[in-house]
């Protein structure tokens, strides 16, 4: 079965969804991504959905789940590049994905990830030993 590639960039993982995702692919992505976060000790995940044109409630929920799972594994997740039509569809479906961080494009998403990692890093650094 077709799988969505997960790229490693330092302590970040990069997922670009270039095809219309169907349900089994989304489930596989959820599996692969959680495996990879643990295996690489990733601190951040960036999911680029700028090529995703069609969403349904299932895919919407999967996006939310993937972000929640990454959060549990202590990796910050940012979803970037959502198209207007997709955003409207998700809102009309009543899915506002409150727990998912978003950014306009990959560049801004990277900035956001780096900023939040710096924040986390400095707070760790300041923590009493």
């Amino acid at each position, binding site marked *: 079965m077709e799988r969505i590639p997960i790229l490693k960039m330092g302590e970040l993982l990069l997922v670009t969804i270039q095809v219309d995702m169907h349900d089994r692919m989304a489930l596989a992505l959820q599996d692969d991504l959680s495996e990879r976060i643990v295996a690489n000790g990733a601190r951040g995940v960036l999911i680029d959905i700028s090529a995703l044109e069609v969403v349904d409630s299932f895919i919407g929920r999967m996006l939310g789940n993937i972000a929640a799972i990454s959060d549990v594994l202590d990796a910050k997740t940012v979803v970037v590049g959502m198209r207007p039509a997709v955003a*409207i569809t998700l809102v009309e479906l009543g899915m*506002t994905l409150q727990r998912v961080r978003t950014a*306009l*494009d990959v560049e801004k998403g990277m900035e956001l990830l780096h900023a939040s990692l710096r924040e986390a890093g400095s707070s760790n650094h300041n923590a009493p030993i």
Partner: protein
Amino acid sequence: MNKAAQTRLAHILREHESEILTSWLQHQRSALSTGSRLISEAEVGEQSRQFLALLISAIRNGIIDLMASEWTEVRDMLSELSRTRAQQGFTPSQTAMFIFSLKQPLFECLRQEFAGDAEALAGETWTATMLLDKLGLLTAEAYQKGREEVISRQQHEMMELSTPVVKLWEGILALPLIGTLDSQRTQIVMESLLERIVQTGSDIAIIDITGVPIVDTLVAQHLIKTVSAARLMGADCIISGIRPQIAQTIVHLGVELGNVVTKSSLADAFALALKRRGLSVQSRKDGS
């Protein structure tokens, strides 16, 4: 109704065309005296002459059924005329008068023609009345349709006019909303805002509701939808222009705005947006 009687009507019309036309124009002139600025007399004359000619050629076969193919030209001309008049600002009665003022001259002619034959006169008069009434109804319908077209066009234009998305600064968009928000407008507002967010790569959008007269639960829900959709794309929204009464209404209705940032004026919202982008406004020290 026998065919002979109807051909008589066509015959009479043809015979007395010019005198009917003159008298008809006179009647129209007196009926239109108040609205005469709307249309020139020459134009009315031309329209009447053309209509009468078409009427005569249509009635030639003796069929008084407006849906028949012989009447296509008459129907088209009358619809066109009514629609134009609706757009020129004629009242419905002034428009219908075009047809109904033909009655008197026509009946006058019939009376002269059938002076000694009461039976035939009654028959012909009835036929003519039926015909003119049908034509009158057609006028009214076309007039109504013309008005509806005007209204729907205006509605459409208003829709487009009322949803501008303005770029305030690099990365900061503003959406000044004016008028009541219904579902259809929210849809358009949302779409144009999201499109502009993508186009300009802006990550802050200020929705200004100074011009929204009433905020009820439905409007609030629409606003929240727009904010959520923008957030999904990675842009933050600030709602500004909340007037004191509206703030009270929102609280009394128990509307939950969630974690949407609200500001009382567009200026405050803009200041916040600049701050978030790491910019600041400073007055020049030399004061020039």
